[in-house]
């Protein structure tokens, strides 16, 4: 029972960027056992859908949070992290398209990126001056003055900068010097932006006569030498570059060229993407490869293939949030199941055990049959003569975790809405749990929003653009797969809990493109499975439908389910005529004949 209650929503999602260090530190659940490479020296790519916790990881690795975690000053930290968020319309301005294929595009884009990053670096250091750095310590002041004249100015002069004043050198404090360096970078950055604005309405080449800073000539040596300052750690600088998908193609190639330099023992680039990174080519036309140039982490793959990891993580996060809100009960108690429904499922489970004990079971153990069949049999029983499968409830912590499909933000968003609805009901000022009917209602609504808001209105009109056409096909594909998985659930086959598919024959390019689009929008995740048949061996790609869609097709989202091997051509039909494809499978037990030539394999 809770001791005190707060009506502040415990599931509010704050942007990690805006989060104070104490809050970020208290909320964070250590996930680095899952992703050890992120904290290690070396360039790393971190891929994951929006809301999967990438920015929060970066936030936690910032010096202020790390100082709390390690109970030390920043000087003692193993690395110094600087957060660089690539916002949607900051670096990718339309004027830059004038340079494409014409005139110093790479050089000017790199200069733009480098000065953008440099501003962020000096601003970050200025922030440390407020609490972590002894601003007027003689050693610190002398060191930074030497850095200013011996490193910073020298590097800029080599890049063609025209020094026209002293800028306050020698400075009387660390912060004054940082302000001076920030000001110079800001002037250079503004100069190039001003140049880009001139390009807007002129097709002709306009000469640029400002300095040109590159990563190797300016940013990298600057960051490398920053480490020698007495108030910063001696370890590497980590640049946490968040949302690198928002770079243009040219800028992406430039960033890849930085990765290619392999200077990671001094400066490590930690780059996050939302699965839409444009290319792994460099400006020289080479590719950066893993593991030689960088390590790679895909959050979706980890959390959709490791059975209980994600469940454990979410429980830790929610337990923590409840505790911080003075709600001293467990996640399971706060998100209770629909008791009536679960009792019925329990009874079905008992009957399955009895059946197994009589030798009529299918799994190795009675619990295998219970896990595999109890819930799906219940859903199936509602679909029969009762025709009330739509009444199946998705309440319960474990179902909610599975519905969030490996993305913590989805869980938090839904939980936040549920909490708000309970508050709005106004019946009880002390919220100790979310009623099962509210959990179910919000889950179903979220599923519809996820599918229909994103894919827009399905119309019979002709698509206006290629994208419109692809989105329509994506909708059709999801509709077909949802229907297929539903038929699996209603069938008598040994594995009825199906959420994934793999191709038994090469899919057409068109289908592949639509699936990729679906992955980008979060409707599919990718993983791999081992081919146990002797013909091909190796591993094959597995596509997992987002469990957020389970309520639309009344599927069981729990556990890690089986998959279908599907012929590429068969599924390609779904892009155009999903209903006709589903109608062809009249008898759910006919599924295997229609869908695949091979026997269904279990996931494990």
């Amino acid at each position, binding site marked *: 029972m809770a001791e005190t209650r707060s009506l502040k929503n415990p599931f509010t*999602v704050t*942007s990690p960027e*805006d989060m104070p260090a104490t809050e970020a530190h208290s909320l964070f659940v250590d996930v680095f056992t899952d992703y050890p490479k992120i904290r290690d020296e070396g360039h790393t790519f971190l891929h994951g859908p*929006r809301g999967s916790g990438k920015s929060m990881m970066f936030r936690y690795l910032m010096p202020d949070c790390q100082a709390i975690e390690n109970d030390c000053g920043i000087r003692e930290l193993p690395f110094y992290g600087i957060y*660089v968020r690539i*916002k*949607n*319309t*900051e670096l*990718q*301005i*339309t*004027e830059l*398209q*004038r340079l494409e294929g014409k005139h110093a595009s790479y050089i000017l884009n790199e200069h733009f990126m480098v000065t*953008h*990053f440099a*501003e*962020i670096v000096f*601003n970050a250091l200025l922030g440390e001056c407020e609490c972590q750095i002894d601003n007027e310590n003689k050693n610190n002041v002398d060191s930074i003055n030497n850095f200013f004249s011996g490193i910073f100015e020298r590097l800029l002069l080599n890049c063609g900068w025209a020094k026209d004043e002293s800028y306050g050198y020698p400075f009387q404090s660390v912060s004054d010097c940082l302000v001076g360096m920030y000001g110079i970078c*800001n002037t250079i950055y*503004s100069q190039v*932006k001003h140049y*880009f*604005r001139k390009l*807007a*309405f002129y*097709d002709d080449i306009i000469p640029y006569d400002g300095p040109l800073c590159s990563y190797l000539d300016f940013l990298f040596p600057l960051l490398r030498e920053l480490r020698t300052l007495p108030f910063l750690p001696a370890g590497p600088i980590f640049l946490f570059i968040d949302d690198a998908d928002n770079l243009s193609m040219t800028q992406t190639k430039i960033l890849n060229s930085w990765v290619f330099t392999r200077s990671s023992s001094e400066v490590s680039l930690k780059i996050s993407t939302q699965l839409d990174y444009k290319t792994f080519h460099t400006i020289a036309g080479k590719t950066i490869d893993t593991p030689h140039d960088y390590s790679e982490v895909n959050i979706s793959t980890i959390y959709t293939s490791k059975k209980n990891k994600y469940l454990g993580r979410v429980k830790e996060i929610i337990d923590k949030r409840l505790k911080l809100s003075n709600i001293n009960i467990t996640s399971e108690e706060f998100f209770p199941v629909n008791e009536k429904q679960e009792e019925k499922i329990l009874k079905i489970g008992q009957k399955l055990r009895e059946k197994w004990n009589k030798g009529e079971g299918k799994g190795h153990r009675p619990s295998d049959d219970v896990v595999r069949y109890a819930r799906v049999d219940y859903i199936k029983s509602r679909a029969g003569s009762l025709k009330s499968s739509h009444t199946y409830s998705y309440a319960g912590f474990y179902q909610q975790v599975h519905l969030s499909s490996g993305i913590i933000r989805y869980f938090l*968003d839904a939980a*936040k809405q549920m909490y708000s609805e309970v508050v709005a009901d106004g019946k009880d000022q002390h919220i100790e749990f979310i009623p099962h009917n509210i959990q179910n209602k919000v889950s179903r609504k979220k599923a519809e929003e996820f599918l229909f*808001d*994103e*894919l*827009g*209105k399905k*119309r019979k*009109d*002709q*698509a*206006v*653009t290629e*994208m*419109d056409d692809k*989105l329509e096909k994506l909708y059709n594909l999801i509709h077909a797969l949802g229907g297929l998985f539903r038929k699996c659930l209603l069938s008598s086959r040994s594995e009825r809990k199906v959420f994934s598919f793999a191709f038994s024959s090469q899919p057409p390019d068109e289908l592949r493109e639509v699936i990729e689009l679906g992955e980008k929008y979060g409707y599919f995740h990718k993983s791999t499975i081992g081919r146990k048949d002797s013909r091909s061996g190796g591993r094959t790609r597995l596509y997992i439908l987002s469990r957020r869609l389970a309520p639309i097709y009344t599927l069981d989202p729990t556990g890690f389910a089986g998959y279908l091997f599907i012929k590429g051509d068969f599924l390609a039909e779904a892009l155009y005529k999903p209903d006709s494809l589903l109608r062809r499978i009249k008898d759910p037990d006919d599924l295997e004949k229609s869908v695949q030539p091979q026997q269904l394999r279990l996931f494990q």
Partner: protein
Amino acid sequence: MDLAKKIDTINDHPFWPATLFICSSSFEQRCRTIPDAINQNLIEKALVIENENIEQVRDNAQYLRDKFTNKGTNVRTSTADPIKTADSLIKAIKNNISESSPPQQIIVDITTFTHESLLILLNLLIIVNREQDSVILLYNSASDYSIDSPVNEKWLSSGISQVRTILGYSGDVKPIRKTHLILFVGYEFTRASKLIELLEPSTISLGYGKPGTATSEKHEEASEYFHQLVRGMAMKYARVNSFAFSCSDPFDVKATILEKAAEFNESNVIVAPMNTKLSTIGIGLAAIENSHIQLCYAPAVQYNFTNYSLPSDFYYIFKL
């Protein structure tokens, strides 16, 4: 500025004749309203803008070309290529106006331009405008949007394929500042919501139409409904404040934006036009005066082609 006038009085206005008349073809029938009402003898030359990547505009583009016959020039633009749009408009303007040209009376029917192409054109016209020239903007209001749909089912377009800055309005964005988004929401709830999700601003100013300024009574009810929807959604992401703007007076909109930008002068101010073209002009004027303001555009994936809008019998007029 003048309030709405009856379209059948358009030829009586003293701003005629036009040395250059500019209009944009569209899938909307409103693209024909003002050209149909004009006495063709009052126009010396005409430019017909056509988005070549949208098939559904072709019929009306042909209709307008036929209407202006040998006075008209087709200008091909693209919602997928803002550089092409700009270059086509620049070429068309240069072909008709030069330093040595006699005084120009340029009249633009802004009704069915895309927000992006309208803002690019606005910037160009201001650049080339000489003291002796006049630029007059005309707008035919809609009597209904998403024809005959109840308010809670109205939609004009959906989906966002990308977000980009508008050429000429890149603003002065500083990487260390937070983002403040100013959004003028009309009927475009889902796209506005998606834009907020993509831009992840720290703060949002959400504009809603001032009572009495909507170009039709029907729009007022819808404006309030969609404003509340977007507000509810936006609060998941950022601190939101609402403000009223005039749907029919671009100069009022300009003043409102400049005021908002001043209020949030410690942030990077981004404005997304998603309301009437009249308000879009106001947004453009504000961004031209305060070059720190960035304007962004998010092309739609789908349009409600068949039921987008119905023309009204009124037009608005103002002079730049």
